[in-house]
């Protein structure tokens, strides 16, 4: 970061304002692929795919699991409307493991397209949760 410019990011979920801060860089996965946002990004609206969101502030990186929602990059701020979003320490590993098994089971014996795509989404969410909580368990 040459000029160390910051921009405001707001992550809002239905239950609460998840995160609000001035940060250096935002990394998020959209349906079109991973994008990194720096200050001065062009205005953009995009759909979020399940993935890890990273907030870089003061050289530190904070990570969270972001499952669903959309993202709006405006000149003065970045707004993420998340249907569900969690910090690593909020993830219930046992539940995620169960969800993973359930989704895998459903995928094996699935009939009908809607169920397959839904189960795939559930599986991706479970894997994301497991990945993130695994990572932070080792660290702490």
């Amino acid at each position, binding site marked *: 970061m040459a000029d160390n410019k910051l921009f405001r990011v*707001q992550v*809002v*979920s*239905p*239950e*609460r*304002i998840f995160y609000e801060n001035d940060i250096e860089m935002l990394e998020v996965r*959209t*349906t*079109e692929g991973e994008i990194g946002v720096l200050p001065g990004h*062009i*205005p*953009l*609206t*995009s*759909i979020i795919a399940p993935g890890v969101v990273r907030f870089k502030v003061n050289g530190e990186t904070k990570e969270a699991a972001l499952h669903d*929602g*959309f993202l*709006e990059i*405006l*000149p*003065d701020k970045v*707004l993420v*409307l998340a*249907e*569900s979003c969690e910090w690593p320490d909020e993830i219930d590993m046992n539940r995620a493991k169960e969800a993973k098994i359930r989704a895998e089971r459903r995928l094996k014996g699935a009939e009908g397209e809607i169920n397959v795509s839904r189960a795939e989404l559930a599986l991706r969410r479970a894997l994301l949760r497991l990945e993130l909580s695994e990572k932070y368990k080792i660290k702490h």
Partner: protein
Amino acid sequence: MASMREIKRRKESIQNTGQITAAMKVVSTAKLQKAKGRVEASKPYFQHMYDAMYSILAKSSNISHPYLQKNSSKKKAVIVITSNRGLAGGYNNNVVKLLTQGAHKKEDILVYAVGRKGRDSLRRAGFEIKADYSEVMNEPMFSDAIEIGRAVLDAFSNEEVGEIYLAYTVFKNTITQIPTLMQLLPVAVTPKEETEKPSIEDLVLMNYEPEPEEVLDQIIPKYVNSLIYGALCEAVASENGARMQAMDSASNNAQDMIADLSLKYNRARQASITQELTEIVAGASAIE
């Protein structure tokens, strides 16, 4: 005049009822506080969602999308949010009245009921109940809103219904709750008041990734879900607010009745004592 014993029994029964209503008032006050917190917490999301929807629609006026237009079906889906329990004054009835006395024909309406009370009275009134999500009312979660939203959106894209409405009670404050019928689809975003100069955001040319149509395809369901979730939270708060008020006035009425009956009881007691005395005196003078 009723006998002393009768008055006493009635007074005791009212006292018991009064105790119950007072306890229920305390309970719903506590629940109201909790529900109010949820409404507050869900507001920012909803507000941002609304703003985002509005700015997308305003900036790209030439988008045509199935969710923005009426389709061929004449049927209307109405999500009716009421409570599972009664004793809340006119709360449930007011929501039901939106449909029974509303502008839409009974035959055209498909009801997606949330809340047992509304479901039962609408069924009695001859409405078609398409689905029932009553158990949601105990503790509405966002995933419930997603489920309901998916059901109505499926019906909309299969052209089973041409319009989607939401009937619920807006929680304005603890003493005011307004039953409202709101249109969800086709999306009707009411334009904001025209400000003198457009803000910076209005002037920016927004880019979409993927195409605007696809983005809308994803965002509109989320918008609908957020509206449903907001409505569920507000309905829970309204229900407890209405119940609190109803129980408050019931307790007050019980107090009034007890005061009235105490007076009557004392009069009856006085009268019986007087009568007894007269009888004794009369008896004594007859012996002499």
